[in-house]
C-alpha cells in the first residue's frame, strides 16, 4: 500500500482554506458571558487595596472576583494563586476577573478597578535570584504542597535543583589539555501562537463542568481542575476544537482555571475568556529564559573529557512547568556529545518575570545555544574544524547519556551521518567564509542537537476505531490537531496497516475528554510515537475481529485470511472474500440470521521502563529515545553596519522514517523559522520595575514573509525499533540548533564571541565596542 511517506493532504484541508475550521473563540452563543482579567502593571509589588466598587456598578457586570483566596495551583509546586492576593510577582499577573454580558462591558468595568500597590524590589534575572541577598519571590516556599521529586530550597529563590553527577571529574580535568569556559544568557520571550489563548467554562445544574479551550492538554485540564478544586473528575468534560498554533504555550493550564472560577461565580453560566494579544504575551505563560555557565576540558584531538555545567532557568514568578523544563535541560545538558565525566547543576529559579510554559524543544534550543557556542570556542582554541570537532565527539550507540542510559542502535539516531550529510548540503568544503566585497561577507555557522522527551513515566495514549456502514473507519485519538498534521499521519499509519485507501479513514479532529480516549498531552513530538502505537494495537484488534467473523462466513481458518482494500479474503484466492461493509456491523445470512456485531477496535500505549531520576546523581531513564540533528545557517553580514540577512538555513535530522514527506518538511522548516526568529529578534525587554516593554506584535516581532532564508532540509533514516514504522519525533528538531548555528556564524563574521540572544545588530555592535 505505500501510504507511509506519501504527502497525503491534510484531512482538514478544505475546512482550513474556506474559513470553516472552528477554533475555540469561534464558538459563541448569545447566553455566553465575557470575562476580562485585570493584570498587574508591575513586576513585584504588594497589593495594598483593590477597589471594585465603581466597576461593580457598571452596566452588564455580573460578577467580579478579586482579593479572594482560591486554592493554590501549579503542576509540581502549588505556588500560584489563580488571582494574586497579597502581592503580584510579575508584570501581567492576573489580579481580578470581571464577568459581564459583553466583552465591551467587561473591559469597561475592568478598566475601572483601582488597585493600590506598594513597589517591592524586583528580581531581574536568574543570576540575581541565585545571589544570597536577593529579594525573595516566595517567602513561604517551604509551606507549599509539592510533588515528591521536586526539591525547592526554602529561604532562597530555588524552586528545584537537579543534579547530574557522572564519572570522575578529577580524572577528566587531568586528561584535558585545553579548557574553555563561557557564560551565556537570554531573557524570556514568547510563543506567539497566532490564536491567542481562549477558554469557555460552564457548570451545568447537575454539577457537570464543561470547558472548551484552546489547549494542547485537555486531559491535564480535567485532571488539574479536579485536583486543585476538589471536583469530581468524572464530571469534568473538556473539549478542544482546532487549535491555532501552540508550540508548548498551550500545554499549561491557566485560562481554564479563570473561566471555571468565573462561571462558578455566576451560577454556572457559560463564561468565555479570550486573551488579547497583550494578555497572551504578558499574563499567560511565556518562553523560558536562561543563564548558563559552561566549562569543557578536552584533549589535544578535541575529545571532550570533562564538562561542568550550570543552568539557571528563569522560572519567572511561578514554577508550574519550569520544574520539568529544568529537569529536561539537565538530562540532555551536554548536547549530543559523549562526555564521560560530568557535573551539572540545573536550577529552577524564581524571578519577577512572566512564568514559562514549555516551548517547542522543551529546554533544548536554549541549552543548545550555550553548548554549541562553547563547541565553537573549543574548536577555535584547538584550531580544529568545528564540524570535525562535533563529528569526533558525536554521541552514539555504546555511549551513555548524562543520566547513564546506555544507547543502542535504536534509541539514538546517527549524528555522524547527519553531520556528513550537512557538510554536503551547505557545501562546507567551499569554506566557512566567503568575501563578497569590502563590506559584505557570507559566513556559515553550524550546530548539532539531540533531544529525548522527558515525559511522565506513566503517560498514556489510547485510540478507538469504529466503522461506518460502508466499511470506512472512524479514528478517534486524544491527540490535538495543533497544526502538526498528526491526525492525518495517524490515518496514514492505519491505512498502511490495513492496506486500505486512506480516503476511507475519517479522523475526528475535535477532542472531547468524555468520549475521546486519553492522550496524555500533545507535546514533545510524542503524538505519533504514543498514539501511533496505540493505533497499531487498535488496528490489530480490528483485524482480529474482522478475521474472526470472516472465517466463519468463509468457512476458513483465520490464519488463511488476508486484509487489504477494505476486504478480508483468502490468501490463495483473493476473489473469495468479504468487504468490510458486509461484516463490520455483523454478517447477515440470506435468511436473516446474523452473527458478529459492530466492530470496535481499541488500543492503548504506555511508555515502558521510564524512571524518575536519582536525586543525587541524576541516574535514570527520562525518555524513550534521542533524536539527533545537525544544522547550518548562512548569513550575509555587513562588516560596517553589523547588519545581516539570513541567506540559507539547513537541517539534517535523523527522522527514522518519513511518514508524510511534505508534512515533515513543513514541520522542520516551520521550526527553523521559529528558531531563527527566537535567535535573531524575539525577546522581552524589561524596565527597572520588571515591566515588559514590548507586549504587542508591533514591537515583539516574529518572522514575517520574506525575512526567512532559503531552507535546506534533509533526513537520515535510523529507525527507532519501538516506534510506528520506525519514525522518530520531528516537530521540534528544526528549531533546536538555529540559535547556536546563527550565533556561530555571526561570531565568526563579526570577529567577536557572542553570548546573548537575540542576535540583533546592536548586540554585535555592543560586543565589538566592549572589546575595543
Amino acid at each position, binding site marked *: 500500500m505505500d501510504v507511509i511517506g506519501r504527502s497525503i493532504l491534510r484531512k482538514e484541508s478544505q475546512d482550513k482554506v474556506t474559513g470553516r475550521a472552528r477554533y475555540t473563540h469561534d464558538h459563541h452563543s448569545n447566553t455566553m458571558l465575557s470575562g476580562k482579567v485585570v493584570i498587574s502593571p508591575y513586576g513585584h509589588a504588594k497589593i495594598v487595596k483593590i477597589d471594585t466598587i465603581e466597576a461593580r456598578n457598571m452596566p452588564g457586570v455580573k460578577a467580579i472576583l478579586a482579593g479572594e483566596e482560591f486554592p493554590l495551583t501549579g503542576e509540581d509546586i502549588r505556588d500560584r494563586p489563580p488571582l494574586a492576593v497579597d502581592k503580584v510577582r510579575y508584570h501581567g499577573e492576573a489580579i481580578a476577573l470581571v464577568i459581564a454580558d459583553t466583552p*465591551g462591558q467587561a473591559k469597561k468595568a475592568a478598566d475601572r478597578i483601582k488597585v493600590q500597590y506598594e513597589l517591592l524590589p524586583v528580581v531581574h534575572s536568574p543570576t540575581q535570584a541565585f545571589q544570597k541577598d536577593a529579594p525573595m519571590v516566595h517567602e513561604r516556599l517551604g509551606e507549599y504542597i509539592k510533588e515528591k521529586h521536586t526539591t525547592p530550597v526554602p529561604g532562597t529563590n530555588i524552586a528545584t535543583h537537579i543534579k547530574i553527577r557522572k564519572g570522575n571529574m578529577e580524572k577528566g580535568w587531568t586528561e584535558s589539555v585545553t579548557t574553555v569556559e563561557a557564560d551565556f544568557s537570554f531573557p524570556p520571550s514568547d510563543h506567539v501562537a497566532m490564536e491567542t489563548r481562549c477558554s469557555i467554562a460552564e457548570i451545568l445544574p447537575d454539577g457537570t463542568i464543561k470547558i472548551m479551550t484552546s489547549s494542547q492538554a485537555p486531559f491535564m485540564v480535567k485532571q488539574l481542575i479536579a485536583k486543585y478544586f476538589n471536583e469530581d473528575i468524572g464530571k469534568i468534560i473538556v473539549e478542544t476544537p482546532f487549535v491555532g498554533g501552540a508550540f508548548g504555550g498551550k500545554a499549561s493550564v491557566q485560562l481554564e482555571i479563570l473561566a471555571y472560577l468565573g462561571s462558578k461565580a455566576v451560577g454556572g453560566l457559560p463564561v468565555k475568556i479570550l486573551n*488579547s494579544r497583550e494578555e497572551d504575551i504578558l499574563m499567560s505563560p511565556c518562553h523560558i529564559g536562561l543563564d548558563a555557565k559552561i566549562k569543557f576540558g578536552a584533549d589535544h584531538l578535541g575529545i571532550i573529557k570533562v564538562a561542568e555545567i550550570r543552568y539557571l532557568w528563569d522560572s519567572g514568578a511561578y514554577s508550574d512547568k519550569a520544574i520539568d523544563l529544568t529537569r529536561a535541560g539537565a538530562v540532555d545538558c551536554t548536547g549530543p556529545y559523549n562526555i564521560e565525566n560530568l557535573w551539572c547543576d540545573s536550577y529552577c529559579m524564581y524571578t519577577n518575570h512572566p512564568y514559562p510554559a514549555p516551548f517547542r524543544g522543551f529546554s533544548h534550543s536554549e541549552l543548545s545555544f550555550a553548548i554549541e557556542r562553547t563547541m565553537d570556542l573549543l574548536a577555535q582554541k584547538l584550531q580544529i574544524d568545528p564540524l570535525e570537532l562535533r563529528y569526533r565527539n558525536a554521541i552514539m550507540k555504546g555511549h551513555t547519556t548524562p543520566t547513564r542510559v546506555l544507547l543502542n542502535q535504536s534509541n539514538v539516531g546517527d549524528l555522524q551521518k547527519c553531520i556528513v550529510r550537512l557538510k554536503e548540503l551547505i557545501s562546507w568544503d567551499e569554506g566557512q567564509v566567503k568575501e563578497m566585497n569590502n563590506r559584505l561577507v557570507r559566513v556559515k555557522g553550524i550546530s548539532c542537537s539531540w533531544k529525548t522527551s522527558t515525559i511522565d513515566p506513566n503517560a498514556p495514549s489510547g485510540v478507538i476505531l469504529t466503522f461506518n456502514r460502508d466499511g470506512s473507519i472512524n479514528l478517534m485519538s486524544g491527540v490535538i490537531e495543533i497544526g502538526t498534521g498528526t491526525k492525518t499521519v495517524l490515518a496514514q499509519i492505519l491505512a498502511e496497516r490495513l492496506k486500505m485507501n486512506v480516503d476511507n479513514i475519517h479522523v475526528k479532529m475535535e477532542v472531547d475528554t468524555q468520549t475521546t480516549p486519553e492522550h496524555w498531552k500533545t507535546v514533545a513530538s510524542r503524538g505519533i510515537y504514543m498514539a501511533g502505537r496505540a493505533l497499531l494495537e487498535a488496528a490489530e484488534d480490528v483485524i482480529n475481529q474482522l478475521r474472526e467473523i470472516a472465517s466463519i462466513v468463509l468457512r476458513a481458518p483465520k490464519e488463511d485470511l488476508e486484509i487489504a482494500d477494505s476486504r478480508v479474503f483468502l490468501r490463495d484466492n483473493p476473489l473469495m472474500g468479504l468487504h468490510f461493509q458486509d461484516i463490520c456491523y455483523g454478517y447477515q445470512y440470506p435468511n436473516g440470521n446474523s452473527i458478529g456485531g459492530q466492530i470496535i477496535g481499541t488500543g492503548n500505549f504506555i511508555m515502558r521502563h521510564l524512571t524518575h531520576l536519582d536525586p543525587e546523581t541524576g541516574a535514570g531513564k527520562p525518555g524513550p529515545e534521542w533524536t539527533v540533528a545537525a544544522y547550518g545557517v548562512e548569513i550575509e553580514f555587513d562588516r560596517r553596519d553589523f*547588519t545581516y540577512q539570513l541567506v540559507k538555513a539547513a537541517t539534517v535530522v535523523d527522522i527514522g522514517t518519513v511518514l508524510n514527506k511534505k508534512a515533515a518538511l513543513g514541520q522542520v522548516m516551520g521550526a527553523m523559522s521559529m528558531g531563527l526568529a527566537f535567535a*535573531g529578534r524575539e525577546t522581552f525587554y524589561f524596565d527597572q520595575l520588571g515591566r515588559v516593554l514590548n507586549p504587542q506584535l508591533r514591537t515583539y516581532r516574529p518572522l514575517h514573509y520574506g525575512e526567512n532564508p532559503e531552507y535546506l532540509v534533509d533526513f537520515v533514516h535510523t529507525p527507532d525499533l519501538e516506534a510506528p514504522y520506525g519514525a522518530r519525533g520531528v516537530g521540534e528538531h528544526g528549531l533546536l540548533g538555529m540559535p547556536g548555528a546563527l550565533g556561530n556564524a555571526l561570531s565568526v563574521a563579526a570577529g567577536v564571541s557572542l553570548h546573548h540572544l537575540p542576535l540583533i545588530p546592536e548586540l554585535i555592535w*555592543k560586543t565589538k565596542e566592549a572589546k575595543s
Partner: protein
Amino acid sequence: MLPFDFEYYKPASLKEAIDLYQTAAKNRKKPMFISGGTELITLGRINLVHTEAVIDLKDIAECMVMQFEGDYLVIGSTLSLTKIEETNHFPLLTKTASEVADHTSRGKITLGGNICAQIFYRETVLPFLLADSQVVIVGPSGIKVSPINNLFHEQLQLGTGEFLIQVATAKRFVTAPFVSIKRRQQWDTGYPLITVAALKIGEEVRVALSGLCPFPFRSKKVETLLNNREWPIEDRVNSALSELPGPILNDVEGSAEYRLFVLRNLLHDVLEVLGAS
C-alpha cells in the same frame, strides 16, 4: 474592542466638518478628526485615545485630490499611503511611505493621519519637510496655506478645530535626486530605528530624520554642517552629530548610543549617494 462609545460623523464638506467639530466641542465631546482612523482604534483600545465624537474626513472632496496644479503637486490628506505609492508622483514620498507599517495597513493609513499621528515617527512628513512644501489647513477661521517648515515643530501645530486638507509641493522638488533609508532594529519589519530622507537641491543636501528623537525633524544647523564642502565628510558628519536636537531615543528599538552609531553611517551613505563628497 474600543472601551468607549462615540458618535460617528462623515461630513461631505469642509464647512460641515468644521461645524461638527465646534458643536461637539461645545458639548464637551472631545471631538476627534480621523482620516485612516487606525490610531483611534489601536490607541483607543489601550486607553491612549478617548473621544465621544469622531469626525471622519474621508468623504471630503478636497482631501482626496492628487494632481499637479500649476507648479505644484497637491496631495489630499485622506489618501491612503498605498494609493499615493501606486500613483507615484513623488518618488521620495513613495519610497518613504512604502516603508511605513506594512502594505495592507498602508491601505488604511492615510497621509494626513500619518503626518498628524500621535505615534511619533510620522515618517511621511520627512519628504515634505525637505521639499519646503505648503500645508493647506482649514479651521473655524477659514482656509490658510503655510510653509510646512513654519508650522511643523515636532508635530504639525494645529489650532483647536483645525485640520490638514492638503500638502502642496513644488514640482522641482518632486523630481530632485533623493535618498530614503529606513533602518530597523532587525531585518525588514517594525518601526524605524532611524529613517533618513534626503533631497539634493542644486549642490545642497537636505536631510530629515525620524526615529532618532521622539519626533521627526529637519535641522538647518545639521544641514549647514553637512554641506560644508571645505571639510572632509568625516568631519562634516561628526560636527553634524554634535548639533542634533535632543533627546536621542533610548528604547526597545535601540539605545541612544547605538542610534548615533547607525546615524553616522547613514549620513555617510547619504552624502556619498547624493554625490556630495
